[in-house]
């Protein structure tokens, strides 16, 4: 299958005040077929959201320098003009943000905000768009959509707002949907409902989805493939089963081990000691080495190779496959 999305060597450099340079994203590559959901996981500051914004062309032109290639449906998004990108966004490219309260406009009704996309991209009339908006709200299982469509965002609960965001993103049947921490601001029982919704929509639309999350539990529930990011790089990429059965990068293992367990009680939790490297002067070596219990001399003297483990499974670690360490 030819991939729908083909990101190659994506690199984002921010130019800050007084000549400060931040290498936020470094050589990120992945591809994505229609109907596949990729989870992009990592902790604060690892570059997962910046990667998403770079794909969507939403980074500030003045301070962010984006290079590499974002292949989408045969063209390189990084080459497109601003107006061509505006035609794509909201139409074939859509995005859901974390905070539904700040990403919805409080001055317009839910219906007006969904209709705007339909009028802009599909040329519907106001009344056609409103009717379609009601259908969309029904699809995301908002009760009594005929009334909700005329309500303002503040009248809706957090879970409802996020559903409205999903409806808006899906208005024009996007081919690629980027969801940036879509359930992080929600309570667990509501999160479960929204995840259930995303799962069923995924089966219906055949869109490729990039789901950004810091929660490995959420990723395990709805993703097909996972890319783990650390300090601006993808350190491991794997099919979801392989990642949770036999992770091949020490950072992935550390993340999994840090989650308090539900199956039994342990005296002390595993920790990943130390902190993120300074992103303005990243070393020409493994970025995780200073925090890695498996490190050796080679890890700090040269950049780690990308090691193939299996089908669509690779790890940026010289020690992979890690089974050698256990043996």
């Amino acid at each position, binding site marked *: 299958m030819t991939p729908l999305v083909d990101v190659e060597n994506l690199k984002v450099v921010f130019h800050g005040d007084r000549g400060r340079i931040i290498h936020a994203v470094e050589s990120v590559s992945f591809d994505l077929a229609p109907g596949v959901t990729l989870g992009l996981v990592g*902790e604060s500051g690892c570059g997962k959201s910046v990667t998403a914004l770079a794909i969507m062309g939403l980074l500030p032109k003045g301070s962010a320098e984006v290079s590499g290639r974002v292949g989408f449906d045969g063209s390189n998004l990084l080459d497109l003009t601003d107006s061509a990108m505006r035609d794509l966004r909201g139409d074939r490219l859509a995005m859901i943000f974390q905070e539904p309260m700040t990403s919805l406009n409080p001055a317009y009704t839910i219906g007006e905000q969904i209709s705007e996309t339909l009028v802009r991209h599909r040329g519907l009339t106001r009344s056609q768009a409103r009717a379609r908006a009601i259908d969309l709200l029904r699809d995301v299982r908002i009760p009594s959509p005929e009334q909700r469509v005329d309500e303002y965002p503040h009248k809706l609960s*957090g*879970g*409802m707002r996020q559903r409205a965001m999903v409806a808006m993103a899906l208005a024009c049947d996007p081919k690629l949907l980027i969801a940036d921490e879509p359930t992080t601001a929600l*309570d*667990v*029982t*509501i999160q*479960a*409902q929204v*995840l*259930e919704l995303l799962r069923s929509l995924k089966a219906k639309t055949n869109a490729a989805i990039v789901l950004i999350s810091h*929660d490995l*539990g*959420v*990723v*395990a529930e709805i993703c097909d493939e996972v890319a783990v990011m650390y300090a601006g790089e993808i350190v491991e990429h794997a099919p*979801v089963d392989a990642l*949770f*059965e*036999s*992770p091949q990068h*020490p950072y992935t*293992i*550390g*993340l*999994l*081990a*840090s*989650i*308090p*367990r*539900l*199956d*039994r*009680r*342990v005296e*002390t*939790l*595993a*920790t*990943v000691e*130390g*902190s*993120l*490297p*300074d992103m303005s*002067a990243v*070393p020409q*070596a493994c970025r995780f080495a*200073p925090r890695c*219990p*498996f*490190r*050796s*001399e080679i890890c*700090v003297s040269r950049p780690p190779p990308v090691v193939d483990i299996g089908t669509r499974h690779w790890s940026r670690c010289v020690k992979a496959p*890690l089974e050698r*360490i*256990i043996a």
Partner: protein
Amino acid sequence: MSALLEVEGLSRHFVTRRSPFGRPLATVKAVDGVDLTVPAGSTLALVGETGCGKSTVGRLILRLIEPLAGDIRFEGRRILTFGEKELRAFRREAQIVFQDPYSSLNPRMTVEELIAEPLALHDIVPASRRRDRVAELLSLVGLDPRYGQRYPHEFSGGQRQRIAIARALAVEPKLIVCDEPVSALDVSIRSQVLNLLAGLRKRLSLTYVFISHDLSVIKHIADRVAVMYLGRIVETAPADELFANPRHPYTRALFSAIPIPQPHSRRQRQLLEGDIPSPLSPPTGCHLHPRCAHAIERCQLERPALIADQGGHATACHRWRELPALSGLSEQEAPGPRLERLMSEFTRKPGVGATAVAATLNSRGLNGVPDRR
């Protein structure tokens, strides 16, 4: 074990809207008849979703806000009768750690000033010895005492939370209310702070009231758990018992909603319908009935009492005895053997030679900015 803290019939309402003459028009029953007992040296966890009243209970226990009704006893003393002087003395015995270490530390004070403030307020350590005591407290929470002269913004989230903990410990309290202390932190940092809290409890024989919405965190740290929904406790039990045999439909729904880091986890799911109702007009009878799959007419009419069995497992549900058994979370969610081995290898202390490598790292300046963001 004697109870350090006993709470009976605790209630607190908030007026959300008043008429122009100050007459209350709308009231939220944030806490509605809560009973709790916390033995000395144990950890009681309060769990629930947004608006369930768990944080309000935490503040009421410390008398940071005043209750409408109820009784709170700390070592047998009724703290609601305390005058100003006694209340001030009580602050030495009970402290709080807040969720957001970015807003709970005064940005204009150095770490040393922040931690020395309670020492001076309560006149615990003479001025001449304060600096030493601050250094001790900093090492107690795993921070380098040399950081005393720095300001909060120079620290990462996890380190700020350590500072907040050191500040709470300064008065040598018996009880600490931890209000979502790790919710704002990344996973790997979260486990460090949880380990610290568990270690301190042991070393200093502290008692915690631990407020959280995260069940995996609670499973790790709590001895006893109270599940709250819209101002009331719906179920309370020893932690292991609760996780093995959840009885209340709400507890079961909470458990089955936790995303577990295992694809194709074969759990029975019991999702709740609809949203959390507005606490302004909670449903009649059992607050859960509009969302509960097992609700009958009685649930609409009659508030279920929280009834405990012999083992101290209490449930506020009319129907829990009739509900189908649900196996707890414990057995089903174990990771596979390969992952288990990889994780234990990761956790094992780095072998010999690690220090040598660390030295190389330092000399090359590769050791990630130590402790500063």
